[in-house]
C-alpha cells in the first residue's frame, strides 16, 4: 500500500505544484513544467523494477515464495468472490534440467477453478501494475493494492525475459483463451505477444505461469510452508502441490463452507490521513461538504456532519474541491476532534473458532487444540478482529521454542516474525500461568504451535512487503486477550492430563508393589498360598478405598 500511496503522492504533488505555480510568473511556470515532465518519466513500473525489495522480491528464494503467494492469494480471492470452493493446483519445476536444490530458474504455475477473467481484462490484470479491483474498496481481502501478480510477472520478465502465460475460461459456453504478455516498464502498459483460443478441460478457471530466476530452499520460509499454513487458514480450499522435487502433496479440503463474504464499507473518518482526505475531496461526486461527509464516510449522520463543519468553521455548502485546495487542514482537525461512532464491523470475515480448529487439526498433528475469536475492535478508525489458536503435544517437538504461525486476512506471514505485533503479544503474555515454560524475554518453550490471525479491511503492515503487523496498542491488546483465552483452555487441558497421568501412575503403582507385601508376609509368617492371595485382594480394596489420601 505504501508504494501506492507514495506514488499517488508523487503525482498529486505534481498537480499541486502545477496549480500553485500557475499564480507565479510565466518564466517560473516553464521551469516547473519541465520539471514536471521529467518527473512523469519515472514510471511506476520502473520505480518498482529498481525497488523490487519493497514488494518481496529481495532475493531469489523470496522471489519464488512471493510469486506463488501472489498467484494463490488472487485465486482464493477470485473463487471466494464467486462463492466457488477453491481447487488450486500449484506446480513449481526447476528449469534447465537442474536439480531443485541447485536450479536458479523455475517455472511457477498456479491453476484455479475460479470464475476466469473476461478477455478485455486479462492483459491489464497480469501486466499492468496497480490495476485491480481491491485497492479502491474498504473491504477485507487478501490482496490490497493490485500490485502482486503483475509484479511477479514483471520480475519474471526482468530476470528471464520470458512473458507471463495465461490460460483462462469464463464458462463452458465460451472457448478458453491463451495469452502471452509482456509489461512495458516505461509506460506501465501490457504488451500482448500472443492471444489465441485454446482447448482446456476446465469449464472455468485461470492458470498463470511465470518463469523466473529463483532458488528453492526448504524450511520455515519456503513455498511448502506457505502452502501448509495457507491450508490451515483456508480449510475450505483444496490444494494440490507439485513441489520442485516433483513430489505431489495434497492439502485436502476440510469443510465445504466458504467464509462469509465480507461487506464493503466506506472509510471511517478516524482512519483517513490528510493526503487521502484531499484525494477524496477532489474525487467526490457530491457537491457540498455536508453531503461529502455523509456519503463518502461511514458513521457520519447529518448531525455529526453539521458538528464537524461547525468545528472547522466551514460552511456545510462549501464545494469539496475548494476545501481540498485550501481548508483541508481545518477539516481534518475538526474530524479528529469530533466524537464519531465506531465503524461497522460487518465488513469483517473472521475464520471463526470452528474453522480455526478444523484448519489446525488438518495440518498439525497434536493432542490438543484451542481457538478463540475476539469480538471486533477498532484501531484508527479501521475495524479489525483478532483470532488465536493453539495446538499442543502430539508430534510437535517438546524442547524447542513454540512455533508461531501468523495470518493477516488468512494470508500466512513468513518473514520478520520478531517485528510483528503477534510476536510482541506472545512475548508479553505470561505463559507460565498456563504451565508452559518460558524464559524471560523469549517465546515460550514446548510442543506448541501458536496461531494468530488478524482480519481487517486494512491490516497495518510495518513495511510494504506485508510481512509484519504494526504495533498498534489496540491490536496488541486484542491479540493478548485472544492468546489468554487459548492459554486458559490449554491450562485446563494440561492440569486434567496431569491428574489423569497421576491417577494412572497410582494405579500401576498399586498393582506393581502390592504383591511384594504379600510375598514378604508369606515369608515371615509362613502363610499358605490362598492366605497370601487373600492378603493381596484385601490390600487392593484398602488402597482403592484410600486412594488420594496421603
Amino acid at each position, binding site marked *: 500500500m505504501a508504494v501506492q500511496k507514495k506514488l499517488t503522492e508523487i503525482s498529486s504533488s505534481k498537480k499541486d505544484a502545477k496549480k500553485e505555480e500557475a499564480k507565479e510568473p510565466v518564466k517560473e511556470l516553464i521551469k516547473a513544467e519541465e520539471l514536471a515532465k521529467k518527473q512523469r518519466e519515472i514510471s511506476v513500473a520502473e520505480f518498482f523494477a529498481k525497488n523490487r525489495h519493497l514488494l518481496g522480491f529481495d532475493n531469489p528464494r523470496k522471489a519464488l515464495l512471493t510469486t506463488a503467494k501472489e498467484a494463490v492469494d488472487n485465486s482464493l480471492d477470485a473463487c471466494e468472490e464467486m462463492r466457488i470452493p477453491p481447487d488450486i493446483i500449484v506446480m513449481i519445476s526447476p528449469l534447465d534440467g537442474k536439480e531443485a536444490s541447485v536450479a536458479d530458474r523455475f517455472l511457477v504455475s498456479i491453476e484455479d477453478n475460479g470464475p476466469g477473467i473476461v478477455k478485455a481484462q486479462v492483459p491489464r490484470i497480469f501486466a499492468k501494475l496497480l490495476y485491480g479491483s481491491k485497492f479502491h474498496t474498504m473491504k477485507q481481502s487478501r490482496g490490497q493494492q493490485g500490485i502482486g501478480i503483475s509484479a511477479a510477472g514483471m520480475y519474471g520478465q526482468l530476470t528471464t525475459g520470458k512473458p507471463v502465460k495465461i490460460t483462462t475460461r469464463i464458462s463452458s459456453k465460451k472457448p478458453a483463451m491463451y495469452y502471452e504478455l509482456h509489461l512495458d516498464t516505461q509506460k506501465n502498459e501490457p504488451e500482448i505477444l500472443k492471444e489465441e483460443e485454446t482447448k482446456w478441460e476446465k469449464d472455468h478457471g485461470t492458470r498463470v505461469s511465470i518463469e523466473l530466476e529463483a532458488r528453492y530452499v526448504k524450511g520455515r520460509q519456503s513455498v511448502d510452508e506457505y502452502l501448509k499454513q495457507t491450508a490451515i487458514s483456508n480449510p475450505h480450499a483444496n490444494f494440490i502441490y507439485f513441489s520442485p522435487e516433483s513430489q505431489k502433496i495434497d492439502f485436502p479440503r476440510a469443510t465445504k463452507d466458504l467464509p462469509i463474504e465480507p461487506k464493503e464499507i466506506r472509510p471511517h473518518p478516524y482512519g483517513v490521513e490528510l493526503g487521502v482526505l484531499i484525494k477524496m475531496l477532489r474525487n467526490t461526486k457530491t457537491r457540498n461538504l455536508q453531503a461529502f461527509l455523509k456519503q463518502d464516510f461511514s458513521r457520519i449522520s447529518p448531525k455529526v456532519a453539521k458538528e464537524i463543519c461547525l468545528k472547522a468553521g466551514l460552511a456545510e455548502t462549501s464545494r469539496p474541491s475548494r476545501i481540498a485546495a485550501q481548508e483541508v487542514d481545518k477539516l481534518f482537525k475538526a474530524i479528529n476532534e469530533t466524537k464519531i461512532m465506531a465503524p461497522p464491523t460487518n465488513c469483517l470475515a473472521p475464520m471463526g473458532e470452528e474453522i480455526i480448529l478444523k484448519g489446525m487439526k488438518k495440518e498439525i498433528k497434536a493432542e490438543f487444540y484451542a481457538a478463540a475469536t475476539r469480538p471486533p475492535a477498532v484501531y484508527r478508525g479501521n475495524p479489525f478482529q483478532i483470532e488465536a489458536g493453539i495446538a499442543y503435544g502430539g508430534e510437535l517437538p517438546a524442547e524447542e521454542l513454540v512455533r508461531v504461525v501468523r495470518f493477516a486476512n488468512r494470508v500466512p506471514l513468513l518473514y520478520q516474525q520478531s517485528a510483528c505485533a503477534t510476536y510482541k503479544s506472545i512475548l508479553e503474555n505470561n505463559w507460565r500461568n498456563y504451565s508452559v515454560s518460558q524464559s524471560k524475554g523469549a517465546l515460550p518453550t514446548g510442543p506448541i504451535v501458536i496461531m494468530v490471525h488478524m482480519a481487517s479491511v486494512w491490516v497495518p503492515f510495518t513495511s510494504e512487503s506485508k510481512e509484519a503487523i504494526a504495533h498498534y496498542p489496540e491490536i496488541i491488546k486484542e491479540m493478548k486477550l485472544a492468546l489468554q483465552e487459548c492459554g486458559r483452555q490449554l491450562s485446563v487441558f494440561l492440569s486434567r492430563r496431569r491428574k489423569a497421568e497421576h491417577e494412572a501412575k497410582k494405579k500401576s*503403582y498399586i498393582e*506393581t508393589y502390592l504383591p511384594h*507385601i504379600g510375598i*514378604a508376609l508369606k515369608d515371615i509368617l509362613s502363610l499358605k498360598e490362598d492366605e497370601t492371595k487373600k492378603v493381596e485382594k*484385601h490390600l487392593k480394596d484398602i*488402597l482403592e478405598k484410600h486412594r488420594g489420601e496421603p
Partner: protein
Amino acid sequence: MTNVLGKIKEVAGDIHQKILKKKQPSMTFPLRILNNVKYDPKKGFFELLGKNKIRTLSVNTVKTFAQTLRMMAISKDLIASDDMATKREVYYVSKNWGDARFMEQPESDLVMDDIEAMFMVNREQLGFSADEHGGDVAGELVVIDKNPDTKKVIKIDCTKFGSGAYSIPTSVEHLEFETKAKFILAIETKGMFERLNRHNYWKKAHCILVSMGGVPSRACRRFIRKLADEKKLPVYVFSDGDPYGWASIYRTLKVGSGNAAHINEFFCVPQARFLGITAQDINDYKLPTHPLKDVDLKKIKDLFKNDPFIQSHKEWSKELKLLEQMGKRAEQQALAAHGLNFVTEKYLPQKLKHPEKFLP
C-alpha cells in the same frame, strides 16, 4: 540379645491382622534426626525423644512399605540360619524383587536403618553388617579373638604389624583385650595415623593408636568404647581443626548421631576428650590455614541451632565462635609445616602434659 525374630513376626502379624480386617496397616519408627534427640552430659550420649513417624500403607507409601517388609523377611531368614549379609549384599538381594528392587544402595540403607530403629536394635542383630571400614589399630594392645572356623583363641599383638595395622572387624562384641597402655589416641586421618605409627609413637607415649578414617564407623566406635570401658582407659581425639572434625567426627564418636539415635547408648564413647586441633592451637602453633568455606560457615550456624551437644557445652560454643571469627581452619597435617616430626616431638607431648585442658 533381644528376640529380634519374635519382634519381626509380631510386627508382620499385626500388619496381617489389620489387612484381614480391611484396615490400613501401618509401621511406627522413631524419628532419626537431631531434632528428636536430647543430650544429658551425665549420661553422655544422644538419647531419643519420643517423636515417631508412622508409615501408613497408602498409594504413596506402598513401595517403601513393601520394601521394608521384604527386608524384614531377609532379616528373618538370616537370623534363622545364623548368617550375615553386608549392606551391599542386601542391596543386591533386592535385585530379585522385580519392580520393588532398590535402584541405589542408599535407598536400601535407609530402609535398613528404619528397621533397626523400629526394633531399637543394632543392624548386626538383624543379620546385617556394614561394608564400611572399621578403623585401624596399632600400639600396646593384644586383641583376643577366635578363629571363625575352629573357634580357637587367637591373640593378636598390635605392636607387631610393623608399618601396617590391625583392622577392626565389623562385629567386636566377642573381642577381649590385654593392655598396659595409658590412653587411646583416636585419629581422624589415616595419614596422621601412619606418621605416628612409623615413628612408633605408641611406644614412646605408651598408648593405643586408632585411625578412624573420617567419621568413625559403628564398629570403630564400639571397639573404642569396649576397650576404654573394660580397661578403664582415657580416650583422646586428634582431628582437623574445623567444624567437620569437631562436630561430625568427634561428636559422633563421643555421643553418637541423630541418625543412629536408637543405638547410641552402645555406640558412643562418652569418656572421649578432645585434644586438638583447637582454634587456640591454630594461633598458638601458627599453623598454616585455609579460609572457612561456605559449607563450613553453614555448618557452624546449623550446629548452634540444632546440635544439643554443642548447645550444652559452652566450651564448644566458644571454640566454634572463635573459629568463625578467625574465618580459618587447619588440618592436623598442617603441623608438618614446622617439621615432619614436630607432631611427635613437640605438639603431642606438650598437649598431653595438660589433659585437663582438653575440650569436653
